[in-house]
Structures are given as C-alpha cells and as structure tokens.
C-alpha cells in the first residue's frame, strides 16, 4: 500500500521551497539548486547515511541530521551550511584522508575524484590529524577492473550497486570499524569470482580511484552513472 504523497512547504537556507512528503531534504534541496555536499549518497541507490557529509540543521531538532535520509515536513526550517556544520564537514573529510592512502598525484582518478572535488569545494587546506597509512592491497586480478583498497572510503556504493541494481551481491564489507574492507565473495581475488558478472557498475559508482577500469589514462577515467536512475525505474516497474 503506497501512501499518497502530499505537497509540503518548507524553508531551506531562508528560501521557501516545496516538495513531496516522501522526499528527503537532500532531494528537495537538489531540485531547488541548493548545494549540500554528499559522498555515500548516489541517486539510484538506497540511502546509506554513512559519510555524514550531508548533515544539516533543522530548527527545533536537538541534533544535526543527514539530509539524505531525513524526510521533509511541513514548516521545516533547514540550514544547510553554517560555520559549525562547515567545520564538522571539514573534519570528517580530513578523517577520510587520514584513513587510507589518498595520494592524488599518483591516482588514476585524479581530477575525477569526488573526495578530491569535495576537498577543493569545501576548502580543505590541511589535515590536522595524523595519517594512519595502512598497508592496503591492490587487486588487479580481474581482466578489466582494478580494486585499490588504498583509495577506498567505505561509502558502500559498490556494495549497494552490486546488490540492488545488478543483483549479484559479489561485493560486501568484511570486518568492522577501522579494519573494515570491501571484499569479493569469500575475500577471494576479483578475477576468480564466479558471481561477478563483470558489469562494471561498481566501478562507475565508486566516488574515488578505488575501483577503476584497466588501461585508462588519468584523463579518461571518468565515471559514467547516468544509467542508474533509469535502471532503478525499470527494475521497479518489473
């Protein structure tokens, strides 16, 4: 039974906007050209709420809320950017940079990386926390793709795309906390996976250079994901 969505009006950053009651703050903001930074969110995949980049202030709510998973309500007053929120976002980004080995100059996604773009856009000039520099493996066993765990931000997009859109569920996350890692099947090499269809969706939803195509130059490694919303719609209509 689908609930009938109603039109609700709310204020985002002082601007009066409207949206449907089943839409999130993020969706309504996007429709109205209001920028909210995101990383784990991707249109066409389920909402995850993990990266915390899209946190916003809602008047009357005691805590900051993620815009991607919070539905709009009539009369809501949202602030998408304040000094406080901005500083939190910078710190979260900085934490992400310390977690693995994000060396842009040596990355094939240099220039097409969402992490890098966010850092530039938000003005992250320095990282105050010490780098952890873990030793992470690179899996180049697949004939078309490479998984470089040094660049992974654990946003879970590849896992969701593989499960929700492709339906293979070849990828998942193992372990927990700081030691979590994306795996293929039973932590096997990607090249020997019997469940992977080599569709490449995971590669194209990956925000960074963690999943890339083999043989592409830095200039060429642009990700294409225009198929996602379309596929989602088609899947829903089956």
């Amino acid at each position: 039974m689908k609930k009938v969505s109603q039109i609700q009006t709310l204020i985002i950053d002082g601007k009066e906007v409207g949206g449907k009651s089943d839409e999130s703050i993020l969706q309504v903001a996007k429709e109205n050209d209001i920028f909210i930074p995101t990383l784990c969110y991707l249109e066409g995949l389920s909402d995850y709420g993990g990266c915390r980049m899209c946190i916003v202030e809602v008047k009357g709510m005691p805590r900051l809320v993620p815009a991607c998973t919070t539905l709009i309500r009539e009369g809501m007053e949202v602030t998408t950017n304040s000094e406080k929120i901005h500083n939190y976002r910078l710190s979260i980004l900085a934490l992400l940079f310390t977690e693995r080995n994000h060396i842009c100059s040596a990355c094939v996604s240099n220039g097409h990386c969402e992490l890098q773009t966010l850092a530039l856009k938000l003005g992250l000039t320095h990282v105050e926390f010490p780098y952890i520099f873990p030793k992470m493996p690179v899996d180049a066993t697949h004939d078309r793709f490479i998984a470089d765990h040094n660049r992974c931000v654990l946003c879970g997009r590849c896992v969701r795309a593989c499960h929700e859109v492709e339906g293979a569920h070849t990828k998942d996350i193992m372990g927990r906390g700081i030691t979590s890692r994306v795996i293929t099947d039973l932590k096997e090499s990607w090249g020997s996976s019997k469940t992977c269809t080599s569709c490449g969706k995971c590669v194209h939803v990956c925000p960074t250079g963690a999943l890339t195509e083999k043989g592409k130059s830095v200039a060429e490694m642009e990700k294409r994901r225009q198929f996602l919303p379309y596929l989602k719609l088609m899947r829903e209509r089956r």
Partner: protein
Amino acid sequence: MNFEELHEIAKIENEKRAQFEYSINVCVAAGCMSCGSLELLTSFKKEIERRGIENWCKAKGVGCLGLCSAGPLVSVQRYDQKSEVIYKSVTLDNVHEIVDALTGEPVGRLACSKEMSFFKNQQKIVLENFGNIDPEKIEEYIAVGGYEPLYTVLREMSPANVIEQIVKSGLRGRGGGGYPTGLKWTTVMKASGNQKYIICNADEGDPGAFMDRSVLESDPHRVLEGMAIAGYAVGADKGFIYVRAEYPLAIRRLKKAITQAEQLGVLGRGIFNTPFNFDIKLRLGAGAFVCGEETALISSIEGSRGNPRPRPPYPAEYGLWGSPTLINNVETFANIPAIIRNGSAWFASIGTEKSKGTKVFALAGRINNTGLIEVPMGTTLREIVFNIGGGIPEGSKFKAVQTGGPSGGCITSDYLDTPADYESLTKLGSIMGSGGMIVMDDTSCMVDVAKFFVEFCMTESCGKCVPCRDGSAQMYHLLSKITSGEGNINDIHMLEKLSDLINNTSLCGLGMTMPNPVVSTMHFFKDEYLAHVHDKICPAGVCNMKRGGRK
C-alpha cells in the same frame, strides 16, 4: 490451561514446599557456579540423604543471591519462622557443619550478618524471587504468583487498559536511554500492520554490567511473562529474545523456560483459553556491542551485519522485517508482571518524581561487596557505594565511580550525594546506562581508563559512519601517545575537538556517546591529563611512560 489449573499448580507446589521445614538454597547463577556451587549443591543433597532427613529438609538451586564476591552463597530458609541465614564463601568442607546447624545456632563465622546494609537497604521488585525459587522450574515461579498477571491481563483487561497502567506507572526503559515505556508501547499499538513483533534486548554489552544475565539466569519466566503481556498490549504474537552468546547459562535456562511455558500453555496458541497467541524464539548475538542499538539488533536478527541505520523511521513503526516492533530491555520486561500485580500507583510511589520504581545495579571494581543490588531510583551514590557496597577495600582511597559503561562517565567523590536517577546522572556528564557501576580507587589512572573505553569503542564501531570509525581510531592514537609520555597539550585540544565532532555527527548511539568517558575524565581529572603531557608522569603509576618521569 485456565485459572483454576494455574492455581492448582501453585497450590500443589506450595504444599510441597510446606512439607519441608528447611530449605537449603544454593546459588546456581553464573558467578557462584564458577566457584563450584553445583558440586556444593550435590554435596548438600547427598548429606541430606545420608542423614535420612529428606522428609523435612531439602536442597535446591536458586537464582543469584547478590553478593557475588563472597560466593558460593547458600541461603538456609526456615519456613515456620520464615527466617533465613545466608552463608558466604561456602566450601565442600562446610557442608557438614551447615547441615548440623540447621536446628541449632547458625555457623557464625560463615553467616552474613542480617544487619548488613547490603541485604537490609535494598528494595526488590525485579529481583524479588532471586534466591528463593529454582529458575529451572516453572512450578516454583507459578507458586509465587507467576503468570497470574498474564492471566489478569488476558481475561480482565483490554490492551488499552494495560498500556494505561504502564503509562501511569511511569516506567522508563532500563536499557540506558530512559525512554518512557508506556509511550513506546502506545506507538507500537497505534502503528498499522498485521504483523508486529516484540523483541527483548538481552545483548548486555556494557563491560561491567551483569544485571540482565542475572535476571535471565535467576528468574527467566518473569521476562517471558513481561514479553507476553507486552505482546497482548501492542497486538504482537511473536517475540524474540536477542541474547549474548557469551551467556551460555542464561541461554540454557531461557530455552528450558520457553519449553516449560509452552508445555503448560502459558506461551503458544490460545493462552488461558483466549484467542491470544504468543511465541518466543531465542536469537544469539555473536559478540558485537553495537547490536545493543535497536536498529543494529534488528539487522542482526535478520541475519545480517549489525549495522545501525538512521532513525526515523523508528522500529516502533518500521522494525523487524519492516513490521512495527517493540524493543525493550530485559529489566524493563521484568518489571511488567509486578506492575500489573500491584498496580501502577504502587510502582509510581517508588523512586523520584521523574524516575519511578527501582533500578538494579551491578557493583564491580574496587569495592568490597561486588554483586547485584536493587534500590529505589534516587538512592544516592554514596549510599550505594559506601553503605550497600561496603565501601572501598582497606588501604585505598575512593577515586571515582563509572556508570553507563563506554557511553557513560566518571563521578567523583564531590558528587557522591547525587541521587541515582536518569536526569541527575546525565547532568553530571554520565548516564544511568543499563546499571553497571565500576568503582575505582587511586590505583586507577583516569587517562588509562579513558583509553580503555576508547579502545573498546574503536573495536566495537561497526565502521559504517566516518566520525565513529575514523574518529575513534584517532582518539585512541592520541590517548596512546599521552599514556606513553609522548603527548603534548595540542593532543588534549585535539581530543576535545574530536569528542565534539563524534558526538554531534555520528550515526548511532554508540558513536554519539563514545566520547563521554573522555570528556568526563578530562573534566574531573584534568590535572592527571596535564601531568601526563607536561611532566610525563602518570600519577597513579599505571602508564608506562617512555620518556622522563617515574613509571
């Protein structure tokens, strides 16, 4: 099963009990069992048989007697005079003289004084049957009035009536948050859906807490009954108990209790000849603290990784397999039968204005009487630690009491007169939590304690959200630096900044509250932090300082 049959069971059981003049009750909860109480029980039984006194004296296993540090505990009850002697640290060698002393004077050197505040100053609701009934026998639970509240509810009360009683009682969630139970039940009752679920959260993950384990081991039927009442009130016919795999005894007793309840028909289909059905299944945890969080727990029951998801939607509306789900903690459910039996007014008369009833606390650490206690809400920490808890072992000095586990904080001697209720503890930067209280003396270094909790949270973080996953690792790194004598004042500022970040931006309760032990120790023991960074000294002598200072 009908009311007469229930009464018949109680009558038979009580008559059976009345045959015996004496009952030797040996604690068979996990604590005393690990000190050999099962062998002790066997030995008592043999001794009774050997002497041929089995027609007026019997020995049986009972639930936790509370004073775990002095186990194995044995309570000798005399029915005609209704008197009781509790023996502590009983060994196989003492069996003989304890049986000898049945008809004479108690064995003085083994007996706990009745005047001991540990026993005198408690008020037991949840623990009322502890030390009295055999947890593996449903008949004994029925004999003390068990399952009568369920009967009353099913035959005489409407679901709305039941919820009204719970609302009026003022009961709040005993798992930590203190959310009003009645309100939660109301939301689930009102939620639309043909299938609803009841979940009992027995994933007692706070290190230093063992209230729920004891309740499940000592009086499992009480929890089953509370769940069934909740099921009737909100319209659910299926219940799950999510229990830690680290509690094998609790699991065994629960399994047994569920089977017995099903056999007698107090669980299952058409309970007490009403249309109400209620089944309870066990689900085992597998060592993940984060699964105490409602949405992570649900994910775990569904067979997945215990990752929390953003709320709303709350489980009350969208829970297990997408259905409205009521999740309460063990102790919360254990209060329900008593509230139905004695009325909401009675319950609301106990405790403080905003925190009603009693609270079970697990006392541990550097305190004389470690064990399980139950006191009215609002009892001062001083009363709990120094009177009931018997104070600190001789020769050392009280430093702090830690409440709320990894989500809580430390409370110093200046604040010992604070009443233990939800609001007062929160005001001090700690939380009530599930009821673990760890007492520390001057042999504990508070920076080291903070590091301990941060390490705990770092390894327990599910890794889904960035602030908790990476922030905890950074905080652990900083605290390791400070406790090895390599820290500087900037590290302390950075700890403050990370605490604020993690608290404000994490996805779930684990992350949000993770900085509490750090913030709290930095507030109350700033000088210890400064000694570590400035003078490279660990005042308690715990940390291994690499550079300068003494150990």
